[in-house]
C-alpha cells in the first residue's frame, strides 16, 4: 500500500485556491519536500503548495485534507484512484472529472461537484450547491459513471445533462432536478423543487421521499416494471435511510419528458 499524506490548511486563503493536480495517485512516490513544491493555484498565479498546506505523513493509502476548504476549489479534480478524504467543507467542483477511487467530504461543498465524473465514488456528508453531477461549460454530457452520494441537500439543476451512473441524494433538491437528463439514475430521499425532470430524454428519477409536483409533459405509465424495479431498488436499498425500504414498495411511474422523446421515467414509490 502506498504512503499516505495529510495536508492541513495553515490559514484561510485570501483568494480562491485551485487544488487540481493534487490527487492520491499524483502524490504517489513523492516525498514531503516534493509535495510541498507542487504548484497550487491562487487567484491568477501559482504558489508552492507549502505556502497554504502543511504536509505530514498520514494513514497509508489515504490523502487527507484537514481544515476549512470552503475557498478551495477542484479538490479531487480528475482523480483516477486511491482515497481522498476532506475533513471539513470544500469549495466548488469537488470530484469533477474523477474517473476512479473514493473521495469523501465530511462537510458541505460548493457548486458543481462531480461534474462529468465517469467512475469511482464521491460521498458528500453535507449539502451541495447547484449543478451537482452536471457538465463543464460547453460539454453536452454531465456525470458519465460512478456513484455520487449527497447526504444533505442539493441546489438547483442537480443532475443536469447527466448521462450515466448513480446519483443518490438523501435530502431535498432544488428546482429542475434532473433537468435535460440524458440517462442514468437519480434517487432523491427528500422533497424535490418544481420542474423535476424538465426536458429529460431517458434515465430514471426515483422519489423515495415526498411526491413531486409533476409537469404536464409526463404521462402516467400503465405498466409496473417489477423486474427492473427489483434490480434497481435492491441496489439503491444498500444506501439505507429513505432508500432501505424501496424493494418492498410498489411504484407508480410517469414517463417523459414527452417534449424530449419520452423515454425517461419518474418513479414514485407508494
Amino acid at each position: 500500500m502506498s504512503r499516505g499524506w495529510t495536508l492541513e490548511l495553515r490559514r484561510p486563503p485570501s483568494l480562491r485556491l485551485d487544488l487540481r493536480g493534487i490527487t492520491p495517485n499524483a502524490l504517489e512516490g513523492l516525498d514531503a519536500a516534493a509535495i510541498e513544491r507542487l504548484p497550487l493555484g491562487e487567484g491568477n498565479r501559482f504558489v508552492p503548495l507549502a505556502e497554504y498546506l502543511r504536509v505530514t505523513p498520514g494513514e497509508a493509502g489515504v490523502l487527507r485534507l484537514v481544515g476549512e476548504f470552503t475557498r478551495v476549489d477542484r479538490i479531487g479534480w480528475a482523480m483516477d484512484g486511491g482515497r481522498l478524504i476532506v475533513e471539513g467543507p470544500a469549495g466548488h467542483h469537488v470530484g469533477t472529472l474523477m474517473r476512479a477511487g473514493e473521495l469523501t467530504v465530511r462537510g458541505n461543498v460548493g457548486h458543481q461537484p462531480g461534474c462529468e465524473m465517469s467512475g469511482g465514488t464521491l460521498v458528500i456528508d453535507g449539502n451541495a450547491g447547484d449543478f451537482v453531477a452536471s457538465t463543464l461549460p460547453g460539454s453536452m454530457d454531465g456525470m458519465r459513471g460512478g456513484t455520487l452520494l449527497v447526504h444533505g441537500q442539493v441546489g438547483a439543476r442537480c443532475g443536469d445533462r447527466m448521462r450515466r451512473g448513480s446519483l443518490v441524494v438523501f435530502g431535498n433538491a432544488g428546482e429542475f432536478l434532473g433537468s435535460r437528463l440524458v440517462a442514468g439514475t437519480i434517487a432523491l430521499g427528500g422533497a424535490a423543487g418544481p420542474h423535476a425532470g424538465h426536458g429529460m430524454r431517458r434515465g430514471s428519477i426515483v422519489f423515495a421521499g415526498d411526491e413531486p409536483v409533476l409537469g404536464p409533459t409526463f404521462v402516467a405509465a400503465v405498466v409496473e416494471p417489477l423486474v427492473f424495479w427489483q434490480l434497481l431498488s435492491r441496489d439503491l436499498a444498500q444506501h439505507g435511510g429513505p432508500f432501505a425500504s424501496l424493494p418492498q414498495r410498489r411504484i407508480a411511474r410517469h414517463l417523459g419528458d414527452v417534449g424530449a422523446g419520452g423515454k425517461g421515467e419518474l418513479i414514485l414509490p407508494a
Partner: protein
Amino acid sequence: MTAPDTAETLAPPCVRNGVEIDDSFAEAFPMKATRILITAHNLTWARHAGVTATGFATSVIACGCEAAIERELSPDETPDGRPGVAILIFSMSGKELAKQIERRVGQCVLTCPTTAVYAGISEGEAVALGKNLRFFGDGWQISKVIAGVRYWRVPVMDGEFVAQENTAVTKAVGGGNLLLLCRDTDSALAVAEAAVDAMKQLPNVIMPFPGGVVRSGSKVGSKYPALMASTNDAFCPALYGLVRRSELNPETRCVMEIVIDGLTDTDVGAAMRAGMQAGIAIGREGGLLRISAGNYGGKLGPYHFHLRKLLAEESA
C-alpha cells in the same frame, strides 16, 4: 473375436454389490460453456423457458450445442427475487456458443411470458446475452446500468423483457459418460434414472440427453463414408453373436449411456462417481450387471475418467 489386451488380462476384477466395474475410462473433451439464469413470474413459466431454450440440444454433432437445466432457483437466489432456473449451454467453440445463446434466448426466453435473463457466470470472456436482442425493441429499448452491470429493458406485450447485456464464457469439459449394462429394459431404466437423479444433485453439470439418458451410444465412423458416427455395435444386445466383437454377454439385454458435461473435470468426475454409486446401490439384484465407459483409446480427448479410480477416490 479379438483377444483382450494385456491390461485387461492383468487387472483384477472389481465388483461392487455384484456389479462389475470395468477397468476402463471415459474420454472427455474441452468445450466452452456458459450458465444463464432465467427468472419468471412463477416457476412454471421459468421452467417453460428453460425447457424450450435447452430443447434440441442433446449433442453438438447436429444441435450446435449441448444444454439442459442445471437446477431450479428459489427467489432468494436470483437477481430479481423471482423463482427461476439455471441452464448450462456447452459448445465446441466460443463462436458457436455465442450463436446458440443468441438464437435460443431470442426465440425461447424473450418469447416466453414474464421471463428475464441474467448471466450465471461472471468470470470469462463476455458474449452477448441481451446485447443484440435489444434491437427487438425497435428503438424503445432502454439501457440501465445497475451496480456496474448493464441491463436492457425491451418493451413487450406483457410489460418488459429484462436481459443482462452479456454473459461470460468459460472453459468446460464435455463427454464424460457411463455405460450401464443391465439385465433388461425395466432394470436399465431404473438404474439410469437413479444415476441421473444422483448426478442432478451436483452443481455445474448437465446430462443433455432425453431424461439424461442416451440409448443410441455411438462409435466413431461408419460403413457409410458420409457418416462420422454410427451405432455402438459392440454394446448393442441385438447384435450379440453377430458382430465380430461384442462387449456383452447373453445375460446383458439392455444398455443405457449417460453423457455428462461439466464446467470442470472435477465436476464431471464427481457426477460420474455419484452415478456409479447410485447404480451400485441398486446392484446386481436390481439388474445392473456391469458399468463401463466410452473412449477412443485415449487418443482424442485430454480428460480421462477412470471408473475404478473414481470409486477408489470415493472410498479414500
